[in-house]
């Protein structure tokens, strides 16, 4: 990777050294620069440009907005921001006028731009598009508040305040603390909201052991799917023998129906870097890698830009905060493959080899990347680290349930009124998420099944909608919290068809190294296909169960081991649907063509 440090001519060395943040004084200076950007003397207009907004035409809106502002000679800056989570109301535009509360507008398509600019010129509110107003925001990192205005003009009072906006009521945005609120490409704005203060605290006031102790006490568990205690993982890697150690961030988001990592990177890349640097210091690594799913050009660009900035300001590089700690981060793009989300396959791909998993007799914490001790966590886990360090264990461990602390990011989609990206405390029930955040199921349909965490999680029937988000509770119900891509299925969904869909996906994604997974998924797909076209036999159900048992017990990696979950869970909860297909050659919802 090319870094600015290597590219900049040496004559600029003094300038760059001047920019380096070494003390708390330097950090505060960076912070106040960011505050000036977030609350400028002219008007600041923020527009969401994460994938969800782009798909609704945010690019054209930005151009139109700039043109219109220029024509009307408005003194304003247009700033791209990430995803605020209200994906169903995109394109979202926010207006910050000096001394006034921030106004959030929904559905500003290109044809609405002229009337919006008119309202901005007159200092008025465009009422029919206004969602809410914000006078101040809570800063999750340090518990302080960020004020936009102390007074509310009379015509602003007709708009609901942030506190009255029900969409945020069930939410607590820890991982998504800056998403949609800052320009992801400016380090100053990240710093204005408490960014890099946790790194300062960790490197100047804490020992690596104390950091690991805090992460252990906080109860943070891996957000990638397994839910392994993060602190324990770090400890094992710290204690492993090896001169070189690595910390990795898994952004290989392979689960279908989940776009949150991409949104997170595009909204707040610095929070990933800060978490990773703290982790590197605690574990004793000097190098970090961020493994990206292939085909994410804009996410890669934003991450690289963030890394370049962190290098210039000295949050990466040598002797960070004069602590003697050196650290570098490299972004590497994979080349596809669902299985590359598995730790050993991911590492093989990082080394430039085909992404096949290996047996884990020896843990990657001891022999991982290039046979060195390696610690792998996913994006969401890393983003949780800075607030835990800065606000402390007591604050964090009060959020969530007994066994599952903190919050969980959920990407909600499927047959639901409002597809959105939300973050709720652990313990929130599935029902609350579906009705209060997702706005319920579209009229004329009923909830049938929920998939909580990608293909390995299987499905849950509508009857279990009162289950809480909790690693252990969901595990007990035969599901998984997984990575949090929650997909809602209505009564027009055929469960045999869904099982066939997932098994086909897993068959395509099986790397082919071990026989049970390679041949098992193929046979399961054939059997399911037979049932769905009306040539299924009574004994097929037993055959599916036997194949499932074989895959679970004998596959090499988790892809194969968890592949049957979708079949087993649909058989457990929707067996009568299989029977109707077999006995009467009828698909109850007419999705399968017999």
């Amino acid at each position: 990777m090319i870094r600015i440090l290597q590219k900049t001519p040496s004559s600029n060395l003094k300038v760059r050294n001047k920019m380096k943040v070494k003390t708390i004084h330097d950090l505060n200076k960076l912070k106040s620069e960011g505050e000036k950007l977030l609350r400028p003397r002219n008007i600041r207009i923020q527009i969401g440009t994460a994938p969800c907004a782009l798909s609704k035409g945010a690019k054209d809106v930005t151009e139109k907005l700039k043109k219109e502002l220029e024509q009307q000679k408005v003194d304003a800056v247009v700033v791209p921001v990430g995803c605020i989570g209200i994906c169903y109301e995109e394109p979202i535009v926010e207006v910050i006028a000096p001394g006034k509360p921030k106004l959030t507008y929904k559905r500003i398509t290109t044809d609405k731009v002229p009337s919006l600019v008119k309202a901005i010129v007159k200092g008025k509110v465009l009422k029919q598009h206004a969602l809410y107003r914000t006078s101040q925001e809570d800063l999750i990192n340090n518990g302080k508040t960020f004020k936009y205005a102390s007074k509310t003009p009379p015509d602003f009072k007709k708009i609901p305040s942030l506190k009255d906006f029900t969409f945020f009521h069930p939410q607590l945005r820890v991982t998504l603390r800056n998403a949609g609120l800052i320009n992801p490409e400016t380090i100053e704005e990240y710093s204005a909201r408490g960014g890099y203060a946790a790194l300062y605290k960790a490197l100047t006031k804490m020992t690596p052991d104390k950091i690991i102790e805090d992460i252990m006490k906080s109860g943070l568990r891996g957000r990638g799917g397994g839910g392994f205690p993060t602190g324990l993982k770090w400890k094992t890697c710290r204690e492993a023998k090896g001169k070189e150690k690595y910390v990795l961030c898994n952004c290989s988001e392979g689960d279908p129906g989940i776009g949150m990592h991409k949104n997170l990177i595009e909204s707040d890349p610095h929070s990933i870097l800060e978490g990773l640097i703290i982790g590197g210091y605690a574990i004793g690594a000097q190098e970090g890698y961020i493994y990206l799913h292939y085909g994410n050009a804009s996410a890669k660009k934003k991450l690289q830009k963030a890394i370049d900035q962190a290098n210039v300001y000295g949050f990466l590089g040598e002797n960070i905060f004069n602590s003697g700690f050196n650290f570098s981060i490299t972004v590497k793009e994979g080349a596809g493959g669902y299985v590359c989300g598995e730790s050993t396959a991911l590492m093989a791909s990082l080394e430039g080899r085909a992404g096949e998993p290996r047996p884990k007799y020896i843990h990657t914490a001891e022999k991982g990347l290039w046979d060195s001790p390696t610690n792998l966590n996913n994006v969401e886990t890393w983003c949780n680290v800075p607030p835990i360090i800065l606000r402390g264990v007591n604050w964090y461990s009060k959020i969530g349930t007994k066994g599952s602390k903190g919050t969980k990011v959920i990407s909600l989609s499927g047959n639901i009124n409002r597809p959105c990206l939300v973050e709720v405390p652990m313990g929130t029930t599935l029902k609350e998420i579906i009705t209060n955040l997702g706005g319920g199921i579209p009229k004329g349909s009923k909830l049938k099944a929920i998939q909580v965490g990608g293909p390995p999680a299987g499905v849950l029937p509508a009857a279990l909608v009162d289950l809480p988000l909790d690693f252990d509770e969901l595990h007990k119900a035969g599901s998984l919290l997984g990575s949090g891509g929650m997909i809602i299925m209505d009564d027009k969904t055929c469960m045999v068809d869904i099982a066939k869909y997932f098994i086909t996906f897993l068959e395509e994604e099986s790397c082919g190294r071990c026989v049970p997974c390679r041949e098992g998924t193929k046979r399961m797909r054939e059997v399911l296909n037979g049932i769905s076209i009306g040539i299924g036999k009574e004994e097929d159900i037993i055959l599916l169960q036997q194949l499932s048992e074989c895959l679970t017990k004998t596959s090499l990696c988790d892809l194969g081991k968890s592949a049957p979950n979708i079949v087993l869970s649909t058989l457990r909860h929707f067996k009568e649907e299989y029977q109707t297909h077999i006995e009467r050659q009828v698909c109850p919802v007419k999705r399968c063509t017999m």
Partner: protein
Amino acid sequence: MDMKKVDEIIEKHQAEKGALISILHDIQEQEGYVPEEALSYLGDKLQIPLSETFRVVTYFDRSFSLEPRGKHTIKVCQGTTCYLKHADQALIEIKEELDKNGEEKDFSLEKVRCVGCCNAAPVIEIDGEILDKDSAKNTIIKLKGEK
């Protein structure tokens, strides 16, 4: 492919450990595919056997192609949410749109699993831009007209 270009790409990734996949990405991006001669040249230069480079290219067959691909890439998402919203039907419709007025060599059509933008399902990505079904069809008509 001019092997000087391969040299430049190798040079660019010199400091990177395990750079094979990054190098292959660059070749694929520049040429639209990975030419076989580049593969054997790469093997000599990096001291990696051809069997290994060939294996990586064919293992990741969604990223790399040994034959030239069309100028425009159309990815029709077949992720779960898109599937629930009838992405299989969208795929058929896009195919029909492409096949109008005879076969199209300028386009390559791919099925992908989730482009991460489920709120707009079913999603179609054309040359990196995320679109819904109708705007995708319009874009195809526009791109065909540009020829």
